[in-house]
């Protein structure tokens, strides 16, 4: 088994890590004390040197994003920790929030200091009741010790931190929708430009939005230096990444892996291989919003941004939601599952997304039921092409790229169903999805 450096998960197995005493007994809150004596610009510089890229899905360079905050702005600057984690197949932030909440908080303190934020917020998905409880308790502990509030750690810096519960909307993971939601409105993405909340964010003020995992990585980076972090992984994908592994593997769970590690080796060694001795059909390495990789592509891939997107332009390391399907799985059912998700979760603001999502679902549904028509595959492809690039946020791509990849990479699965339908013989099907109407 590969030896992976543990930066984020190092202490998650310690049973008292979620308490401030446990966290501090393992060196917690020593990095922020050091950082508070640095120049804020120097902190940002270290993060730029580290090469850290956003772990929420897009992979945008973190330090660079912070530099977009206008210098000398007279408005307050805000920091938001994106803990919405609603991307199907992703459950890594949950582990950090539940097991090492103070690491998440210390990371936020570092970022807040660097960008000059005095108010910070953790936006956590509504269903994460237990992680919410843990983080809220951690925040209380910090306030009690004056680690939060006025003059934190006896410095002249103040920082208030609030945890805010979402209420069940996938789109609130998109940063501008998240900000709308945090302002007490419907979670609908904002028109761009401005492209970054750094220009106009929460309450129209400059705001940094970073994913929970991104912020948690800052503690190690500021402790050991940006260069040390850049030594780990590959030249362009530095450091370690959390993968939430699920589906047909023997050992699902959250793993911390050094970037650049061979995907197949990870699958076979760390994840224990495919269950019941079956064969691999495909992997979605970065959540549901990007293309699936076939077994052949998986064999060539390494776990970093460049390798995955190099194999397929529409594939991405994304959130690290690593979903594995075996060769007994019908890709039509997989595609239907996702199509249902995207049709259900569209915020309804842009017509191509709101309508297109439902059409794609309907067409895949009829193929799955054995009622497919000649030309349905081309129709899916054409609808998807008309959705992507025509929406306010990246949801349009998230709905169409995976669907197009399913039909492009596994045409046989779709064609077989359509052929059966045309010939009037619907063969036995192994459905993945429960159909309420059909069951009545």
């Amino acid at each position: 088994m590969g030896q992976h450096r543990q930066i984020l998960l190092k202490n998650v197995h310690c049973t008292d890590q979620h308490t401030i005493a446990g966290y501090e007994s393992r060196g917690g809150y020593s990095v922020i004390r050091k950082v508070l004596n640095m120049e804020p610009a120097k902190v940002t510089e270290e993060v730029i040197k580290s090469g850290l890229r956003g772990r929420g899905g897009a992979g945008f360079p973190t330090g660079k994003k912070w530099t977009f905050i206008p210098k000398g702005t007279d408005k307050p600057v805000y920091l938001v920790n994106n803990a919405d984690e609603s991307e199907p197949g992703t459950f890594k932030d949950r582990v950090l929030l539940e097991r090492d909440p103070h690491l998440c908080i210390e990371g936020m303190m570092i970022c807040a200091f660097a960008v000059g934020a005095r108010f910070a917020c953790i936006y956590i998905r509504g269903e994460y009741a237990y992680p919410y409880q843990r983080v809220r308790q951690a925040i209380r502990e910090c306030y009690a010790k004056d680690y939060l509030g006025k003059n934190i750690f006896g410095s002249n810096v103040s920082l208030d931190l609030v945890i805010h519960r979402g209420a069940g909307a996938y789109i609130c993971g998109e940063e501008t929708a998240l900000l709308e939601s945090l302002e007490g409105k419907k979670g609908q993405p904002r028109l761009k430009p401005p492209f970054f909340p750094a220009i106009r964010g929460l309450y129209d003020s400059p705001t940094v939005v970073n994913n929970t995992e991104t912020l948690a990585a800052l503690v190690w980076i500021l402790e050991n230096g940006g260069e040390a972090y850049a030594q780990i992984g590959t030249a362009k994908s530095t450091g370690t990444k959390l993968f939430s592994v699920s589906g047909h593997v023997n050992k699902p769970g959250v793993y911390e892996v050094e970037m650049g590690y061979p995907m197949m080796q990870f699958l076979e060694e760390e994840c224990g291989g495919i269950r019941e001795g079956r064969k691999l059909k495909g992997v979605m390495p970065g959540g549901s919003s990007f293309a699936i990789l076939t077994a052949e592509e998986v064999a060539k891939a390494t776990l970093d941004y460049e390798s995955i997107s190099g194999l397929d332009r529409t594939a991405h390391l994304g959130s690290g939601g690593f979903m594995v399907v075996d060769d007994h799985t019908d890709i039509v059912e997989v595609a239907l599952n996702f199509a249902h998700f995207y049709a259900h979760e569209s915020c309804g603001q842009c017509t191509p997304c709101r309508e297109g999502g439902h059409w794609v679902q309907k067409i895949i549904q009829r193929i799955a039921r054995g009622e497919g028509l000649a030309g349905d595959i081309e129709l899916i492809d054409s609808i998807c092409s008309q959705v992507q690039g025509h929406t306010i946020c990246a949801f349009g791509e998230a709905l169409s790229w995976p669907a197009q990849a399913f039909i492009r990479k596994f045409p046989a699965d779709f064609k077989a169903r359509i052929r059966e339908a045309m010939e009037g013989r619907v063969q036995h099907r192994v459905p993945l999805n429960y159909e309420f109407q059909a069951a009545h």
Partner: protein
Amino acid sequence: MTVKLSAQAETKVEEYKKLYPNVRSAIMPALYIAQEELGSITADAITWVAEKIGIAPVQVMEVATFYTMYYKKPVGKYHVQVCRTLSCALMGGRAITECVKKRLGTAPHEVSPDGQWSYEEVECLGSCGTGPMCQINDHFFENLTPEKLLQIMDRIEKEQPDLRFSAVRDALGEGLKGYPKSEVI
């Protein structure tokens, strides 16, 4: 019209209002407070939140209807939400939905005649490595089989535990004593 909730709810909402740079941000927490007390987002809930935050009821309504976790009509005392998304489906999520439907004999979102149960299928809950899973009120139940879920439901019927959000304690499974901790790693 003035709507009054418990003193505890009134204090809580005032605390939330102080937390944010702008009070409007307290709408979502206020809706949760009202929902816990009233069971769902009733007309009274909307009025109460609007009065507390100082905005028009229609603005509260707009928020309440956008998010699925605010129930626009009553749910059972125990609301079962079965994850239907891919990772759970690959591990047999379909059988879990089927099992709940069979046991309750109701349609999704319909409350059982005794007011105890309702259910629905929901999208990924962030427990994909421990699927199939479901959420009953605000508690996760993971690595399910139909048999396991039926046992859990039996116990809930008998013990009538408080599984609401405010009853989530530091130890997982406190709401249902002795229920094994979830292990995501």
